[in-house]
């Protein structure tokens, strides 16, 4: 019934100072087949070691000590990019706007409808998964880029700027044949099947030069 694999390969964190809410959410999320970890305070959450798998955070806006919104800012500052689902006792519109602007996935009002929570959690996990995949893709491309020789790195910048072999040869002060060989190596080492793909990679790495 459920995408068991995807769900056990992810984790939902709950931070709420109210023990009974915490327990209820833990049970509810667990009954949905989620892996759950609960914390009584923002500090407790920050102290823990987070698993390196897709995750999201269910957070009460009214946390003692720091407010949920301050906590959101703190996480952003610490570069912890976990998607946040806020829970609030009563719909406070300015607060909602602030939270959403700061990147909250969803703002749920208590008592929470379980389907809303499930949808929000799925959305948040998908978002985190996508972010992680994108990051992974970038780091793979970067690793390939770094395996290039300095000459080849020069070539990739020129190729993706739209220069022809002849222009590249002139720019680098080498023969057209040599330029062509470098270009072939670049395509092979980067695993690019077309120029378009190579351009996308250069964009990802932020190394594409503007066309001359």
């Amino acid at each position, binding site marked *: *019934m459920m995408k068991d694999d995807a769900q056990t390969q992810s984790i939902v964190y709950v931070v709420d100072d*109210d023990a*009974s*809410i915490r*327990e*209820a*959410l833990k*049970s*509810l999320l*667990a*009954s*949905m087949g989620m892996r759950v970890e609960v914390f009584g305070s923002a500090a407790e959450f920050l102290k823990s070691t987070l698993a390196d798998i897709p995750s999201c955070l269910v957070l009460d806006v*009214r946390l003692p000590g720091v*407010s949920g919104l301050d906590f959101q800012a703190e996480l952003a500052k610490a570069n912890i990019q976990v998607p946040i689902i806020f*829970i609030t*006792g*009563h719909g406070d519109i300015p607060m909602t706007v602030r939270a959403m602007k700061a990147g909250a996935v969803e703002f749920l009002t*208590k*008592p*929470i*409808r*379980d389907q809303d929570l499930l949808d929000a959690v799925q959305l948040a996990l998908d978002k985190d998964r996508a972010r992680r995949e994108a990051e992974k893709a970038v780091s793979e491309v970067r690793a390939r880029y770094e395996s290039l020789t300095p000459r080849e790195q020069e070539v990739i910048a020129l190729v993706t700027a739209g220069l022809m072999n002849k222009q590249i040869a002139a720019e680098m002060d080498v023969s057209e044949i040599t330029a062509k060989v470098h270009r072939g190596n670049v395509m092979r080492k980067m695993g690019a099947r077309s120029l378009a793909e190579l351009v996308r990679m250069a964009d990802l790495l932020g190394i594409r030069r503007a066309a001359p």
Partner: protein
Amino acid sequence: MWEQHRDLILVTIILVQAVLIAALLLQALRKRRAGETCWRSAFDASTLGMALVDRELKFVAANAAFRSMLGYGDSELRGLTPLDILVEEDREASRRLHGELAQGARQCGDLVGRYRRKDGPEVWAHVYLSAIPGQDPRLVLATAIDITSRKLAEDAARVAQSDLARIARLITVGEMTASIAHEINQPLGAVVANGNAGLRWLARATPDIEEARAALKRIVNEGHRAGQVIGGIRSMFKKDGGTKAPHDVNELVREVLALVHGEVEKERVTVRTELVDELPPVLVDRAQLRHVILNLVSNAIDAMNSQNGRARVLRLRSEHAGDNVMVTVEDSGSGIDRENMNRIFEAFFTTKPQGMGMGLSICRSIVESHGGRLSAACGHPHGAVFQVVLPGHQPGAE
């Protein structure tokens, strides 16, 4: 002047009139002179209700004012005693006073009581009794003033006052609605989440009975928790003060702090508490005393909300003060102007634009009704200090 001494002046007039008329009457009765009819006329013409009562408390004579006050005819009264027409609860006081007069233990006295008119309604009367000297058998002159309208006005004032107290309480409660909504929403949120969890545990391919059972248990607990919150609110709204019981003031202080939590956070107030453990309990109506502390704390927060640049500090202390327990609420706000210091406990005196001026006067009357004191002072270097002193409760001391 008239208001203050009204009773005294009335009593003097009545007694002078009464003694005068009685002396003249008696003289007339004794001598049975031709002038008797003259004194009889004076008696009858008096605007005060007058009657003569004999040893057996039977009415011997009653003037027109007396008869019309009670709606009885002359001959009907003759067969009655004052006790017959007094309402049940007021008879004993009358019987005792008449007894003392009969024994010569005293010459005069007065009582306030309700008489039942012949046609039904009750009449409040202030009755002055004086024994007439030298008479055998003894006679007692009763002079009665109808004070029904005054009594009704007093009752109305009392009702109005308790209504006002309740309104003021409701206003404070209204300000706390957000906090209370939060208090109710917590258990409610837990109930819904647990209920959903339970359903999902049961809907699994292999239903997880244990998890479902645990969820149900949590629902029951949360239901009780919500009930307690409601109970607390109801006691705040209750028209009559609840019963007094020994309570820990520290617990009440903490309860109030939980109630104003949202406000404290919003206003960025720093709360410092110094609560002495092992204080004697205080014998109080919990809701009323909580109202007092809540009011003082809300005032303290209000006093600081317009202030910039200075730290907003709310201090709450509890300590021994001899056999008493003292709770101090201190703020670092704008303080109280010297000329207002004496007036802040007056009803309808307020320095707040939207204030009704009832809060502190109600607080003081609550504290005093618990045998305590509520006082205010200036803080150092700024702010205001309110102190509630309540007698410590010694178990078994009553």
